[in-house]
């Protein structure tokens, strides 16, 4: 087999056939989609959850993961925070002509490993090859199907004053790890992306009997944007305490250098919980049992209902309002 992906690998002919057989089928097991145009599944019930995301991360390989791992984590986490039990994934690859086959194999392997860890099957796949310059190496779409839980308590209408807001660990790791991995701005750090599927940890919290009213994964736009959207979507007033935000030193240092605010940095392995006040301790204890939840913290609370807004209490004690990320974060010198 060639060492690079060529346009012919995406032309539906003999090379495409070989690529699918040698890379995808061997990693994901027999995919009946390739024989039937679609894969048939018998789910225990017709109550399902569906989500889709494309992944365009640059660089493709970074400390703590790669695009394959993130493509699984992102979709597993979306299903999980929606309160569903992830069941299966579809995977669509868009590959730039000239992409090294060895790298493709690595990505597919990592995708398969993470799916296996998360306990979900890859049930359908697709590969397209675009001309050199038509993509930045590799893009992946994953679409996830999950099963609705009987025991789910998720219901944002139940969000009430006093509810606790928790995060499963330190914020901004992914954003800074990726920026450093790009090497453009000269940042050097041993920070790793937090990207990871969180379904088992979320399972433990829900099956542990915590009264979870809402979950979200603070990916693009960070904790601030995610909580602003949540507050607005469900008419809640949420207050965070700046001093309680778990932030790693390296993230603080890099943010200081570039003039970034960690509240707006992307995370790929974190979940925000809104739980009833009485369950905050129990939630923390359950989270702390998982490596991904070791540094989980209560970072704020719901202080009222009404026109949704997110407030931040600074160490000085004054409260300022947080808004969505406005435009991109750009490194600044002034």
């Amino acid at each position, binding site marked *: 087999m060639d060492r690079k992906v060529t346009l012919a690998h995406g032309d539906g002919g003999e090379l495409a056939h070989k690529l699918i057989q040698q890379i995808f089928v061997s990693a994901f097991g027999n995919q009946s989609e390739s024989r039937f145009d679609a894969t048939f599944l018998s789910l225990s019930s017709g109550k399902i959850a569906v989500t889709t995301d494309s992944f365009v991360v640059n660089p493709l390989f970074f400390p703590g993961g790669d695009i394959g791992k993130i493509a699984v984590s992102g979709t597993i986490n979306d299903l999980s925070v929606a309160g569903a039990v992830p069941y299966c994934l579809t995977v669509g690859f868009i590959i730039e002509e000239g992409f090294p086959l060895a790298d493709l194999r690595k990505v597919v392997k990592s995708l398969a490993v993470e799916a296996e860890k998360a306990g979900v099957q890859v049930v359908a796949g697709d590969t397209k090859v675009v001309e050199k310059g038509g993509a930045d190496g590799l893009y992946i779409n994953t679409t996830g199907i999950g099963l609705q839980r009987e025991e789910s308590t998720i219901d944002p209408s139940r969000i009430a004053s006093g509810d606790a807001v928790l995060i499963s660990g330190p914020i901004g790791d992914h954003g800074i790890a990726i920026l*450093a991995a790009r090497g453009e701005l000269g940042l050097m750090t041993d920070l790793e992306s937090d990207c990871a599927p969180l379904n088992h940890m979320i399972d433990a919290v829900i099956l542990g009997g915590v009264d979870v009213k809402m979950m979200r994964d603070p990916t693009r736009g960070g904790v601030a944007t995610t909580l602003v959207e949540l507050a607005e979507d469900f008419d809640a007033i949420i207050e965070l305490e700046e001093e309680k935000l778990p932030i790693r*030193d390296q993230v603080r*240092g890099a943010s200081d250098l570039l003039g970034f605010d960690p509240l707006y940095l992307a995370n790929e392995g974190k979940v925000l919980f809104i739980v009833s006040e009485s369950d905050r301790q129990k939630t923390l204890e359950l989270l702390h049992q998982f490596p991904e939840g070791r540094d989980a913290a209560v970072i704020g609370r719901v202080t009222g209902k009404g026109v949704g807004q997110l407030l931040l209490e600074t160490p000085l004690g004054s409260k300022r309002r947080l808004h969505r990320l406005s435009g991109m974060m750009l490194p600044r*010198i*002034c």
Partner: protein
Amino acid sequence: MCVGVPAKVIEKNEFTALVDVLGTKMEVGILFVPDVEIGEYVIVHAGQGMSIIDQTFAQASIEEWEKMARADII
């Protein structure tokens, strides 16, 4: 006007130094602070060390603020 961040010098070359800001590292110029020594802190702006931090004054400031905070204002 000018974002400036204190950074600890951990390696020194002829024109540049490797600095550490809470664990994140960066190569910066030391054209304006040629005498900086490993272990000292500099203020970094736009990729250059601009000033060596005098730790005695830094410590004195903290003490001054604490005194200020405790001061009685009649």
